[in-house]
């Protein structure tokens, strides 16, 4: 299951959603807002998405992940809007029969999400300025 939301991501609920009697492992990755990037202090991030395409890409990543590992169940949730330092912006929860599979699948899913899904973040620096994060545009 995949979801874009403007609400707080409820970790306990995600965990319960993927728990299964035939799975001995649940792995959860949380992406949280970090306070320090490239020597500058962040107070918050704003997340923006192209929702129709973001949901389509996330669904494709779920299908890929399910093809590659024996997934019991999985959920990927990305939060959008204004998030202060420490808040959870993205979560991936995956259950598998064994922990090795669950760790690998979870890492794969979050890496693909970061690479492919049209979601952008804007830094709100401590000095009051803001800046969209597009690393590929800063490269010469």
């Amino acid at each position: 299951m995949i979801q874009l939301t403007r609400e707080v991501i409820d970790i306990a609920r995600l965990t319960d959603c993927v728990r299964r009697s035939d799975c001995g492992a649940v792995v959860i990755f949380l992406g949280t807002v970090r306070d320090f990037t490239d020597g500058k202090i962040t107070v918050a991030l704003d997340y923006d998405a192209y929702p129709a395409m973001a949901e389509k890409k996330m669904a494709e990543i779920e299908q890929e992940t399910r093809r590659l590992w024996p997934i019991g169940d999985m959920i990927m949730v990305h939060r959008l809007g204004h998030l202060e330092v420490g808040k959870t912006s993205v979560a991936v929860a995956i259950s598998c029969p064994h922990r090795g599979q669950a760790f690998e699948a979870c890492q794969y899913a979050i890496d693909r999400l970061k690479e492919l899904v049209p979601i952008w973040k804007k830094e709100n620096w401590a000095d009051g300025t803001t800046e969209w994060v597009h690393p590929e545009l800063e490269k010469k």
Partner: protein
Amino acid sequence: MKVTVHFFARARDLAGRETVSYEVASNTTVQELRRQLEILHPALAGILPRCALAVNNGFVKDAASIPPDAEIAVLPPVSGGVR
């Protein structure tokens, strides 16, 4: 034919708007639309070559023709992050 273009993230700030509708010639290609957007929005010229253009929620080749009433999205590179 009409196309609707949505701008995101820095492209939205530079274009100064979220969504614009344009009247373009039939069979306009993605590449041609890219050039027209650069002319209409000079502020975008620096980043447009490195933005992806999605047509009706999917990626297509630059040589592809745009269908009538298409929804186009100008997508700057995503942040990716450090693994």
